[in-house]
């Protein structure tokens, strides 16, 4: 097998799917860092975002790229609404209660998607798109856009966290909640902001997943494990770690087909997660939380 084939059929798909994992993992890592629990409804929120974009595409007749910001905004609002309705109520209780509640929220969100959009596989645009050939590397426009959008969103998020007042407040909450509260950081606003960002990132992950593959009611749920693996691999609480983790998990999954029978591909994320927790539980970039 030539080097070009390895790039085209193993590396490129790995990077694309890794970018989508990265978008999801960044959201997971933010929730972990600031609110300090594992959010199991993350995948299904991504599904919701993808289907909201589908609604905009079918009703408005626009391209999915135009629908993306709309879906991000609506999903952000839904995420804030879910927090207000379910998680806020449990905030003073042990975190495991919220984790379990998020599993319930996951089921509810999925059920809503199934009721509204049905259970059939759907796509934003019908038909198939053959990849373009760039000097031997076969890549499609939407794959390129997926990777670029992921990089753009993450850079924007990093700049926001680093330089803006509220970004600093979020980091302060993540570093030491008690100290942050004492110095006058408004907890409610930080939580609101976190969910807005997480909801928007979820929707982006969902839309890009739907754009590159298909929209299914279970699409987000089956992404949850690789996304968690990516967040933990990179170091929980580190945005750049989540991106690195996402890409590694994505590429490792695709590359595993070279050496392992393909039915073990799905297990690669488990294996990485397990190995990382054993060898270096703080993650590659030394996570701040776990």
């Amino acid at each position, binding site marked *: 097998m030539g080097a070009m084939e390895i790039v085209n059929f193993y590396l490129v798909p790995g990077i694309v799917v890794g970018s989508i994992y990265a978008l999801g993992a960044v959201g997971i890592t933010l929730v972990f860092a600031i609110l300090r629990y594992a959010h199991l409804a993350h995948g299904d929120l991504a599904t919701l975002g993808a289907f909201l974009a589908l609604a905009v595409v079918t009703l408005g007749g626009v391209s999915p790229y135009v629908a993306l910001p709309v879906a991000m905004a609506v999903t952000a609002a839904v995420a804030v609404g879910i927090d207000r309705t379910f998680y806020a109520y449990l905030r003073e209780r042990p975190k495991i209660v919220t984790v379990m509640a998020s599993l319930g929220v996951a089921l509810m969100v999925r059920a809503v998607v199934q009721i509204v959009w049905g259970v059939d596989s759907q796509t934003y645009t*019908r038909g198939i798109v053959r990849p373009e050939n760039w000097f031997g590397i076969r890549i499609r426009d939407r794959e390129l856009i997926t990777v670029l959008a992921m990089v753009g969103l993450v850079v924007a998020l990093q700049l926001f966290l680093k330089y803006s007042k509220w970004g600093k407040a979020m980091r302060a909450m993540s570093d030491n909640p008690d100290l942050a509260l004492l110095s006058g950081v408004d907890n409610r606003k930080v939580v609101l902001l976190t969910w807005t960002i997480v909801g928007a990132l979820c929707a982006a992950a969902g839309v890009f*997943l739907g754009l590159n593959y298909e929209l299914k009611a279970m699409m987000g749920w*089956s992404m949850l494990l690789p996304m968690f693996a990516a967040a933990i691999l990179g170091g929980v609480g580190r945005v750049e770690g989540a991106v690195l983790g996402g890409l590694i998990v994505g590429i490792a999954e695709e590359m*595993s087909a070279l050496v392992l029978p393909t*039915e073990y591909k799905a297990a690669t994320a488990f294996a990485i997660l397990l190995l990382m927790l054993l060898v270096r539980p703080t993650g590659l970039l030394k996570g701040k939380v776990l």
Partner: protein
Amino acid sequence: MKTLRIAALAALLGATALAAPAHADVKIGLLGGISGPIAAMAPAMIDSANLAISQVNEAGGILDGRKLIGVVGDSACNPQNATDAATKAVNLEGVIAIVGPHCSGAVLAAANSVTIPAGVTIVTPSGTSPEITTLQDNDTVFRTVPSDDYQGRALARTLLERGTTKVAVAYLNNDYGKGLAEAFRAEFEEKGGEIAGFAAHEGERASYRSNLADLAAGGADTLVILDYGDGSGLTMLRQALENGFFENFVGGDGMKSDAPIRELGADNLTTFIASAPVGQQSDALEVFNKAFSDIGGDPNAIFVTTSYDATFMLALAIEKAGADKSKVSAALREISNGEGEPILPGEWAKAKELIAAGTAIDYRGAAGEHNFDEAGDVPGAYALFKVSGSTFEVIAEME
């Protein structure tokens, strides 16, 4: 405390007394993959089962004028949900027999852990795995759909006859995909064909390009996909087409779904063929087609005939067995063993009279005669389909 316990006990006793009045309705379970990978096929299958139930109720009901009730449960096409749904149907709802579950893995799990121990007869309209044949089931597991052992072998022979001698096989890593793939491989190799790639894949993944690249490395230009057309089968087909890994595509019955045509477009599927069980042309099939069309159903949808037959036959068996669940399986064999007065779909009143008079009856189903063999299986007829316009069209009968 003691009084409280006695009160609670009394309340429980009262509840059981209420739950079992003298002339209870007769319940049968309808377990199907309402959510999960075959969610797109399940509604039509449940509708056709309900058609049989409503025909029974309209023509005088079951036994001494009782109502037959179908209790729908979601087996979600996976073993855990099927076990839960079967437990609920058997222990809480108190069903006397079950139509379903729909998927092979779900059938095996529900049968082994729930219905065989409970002695409840189940008839699956779509569980096609060869594994079901070998279940130690005390004769309680039946199916109205032929085993994939037949389909896999028929597909292998048909491909060889059509001049395809080298294929790669991608199958879904579950009881359905594995059973079909093994049967296909055995026959294809025995008859001189070459399998240039044989790999399982997990469902619901985003990318299958590396799987496809691996399979294509064997040098075959035909890919046999044994998966569901609404699930990962669609993703595989799309990525294989987009990247030009293979030229020709062959699917099993799971791939004969509208989803690939709808999402990929018929223009892109000119080299795609799929095999599926077909009802032999018969009066029974026409009667069913008309009745199902009248309630707005599509009689060409997959597994609707087998679902209808499974339900109607169980109703006949219950009528004959007299609501005794331990006698249902024996009665099921008696009402369709090739001997006796023929009964067509929907002929409930006639069947009821004959059973009451003690005359032997023989149900001729929409999907076939359904004369069960020792394992509770039925032989099958298959056809090869190609995409034509927005639907599938028969191109050849399969031997």
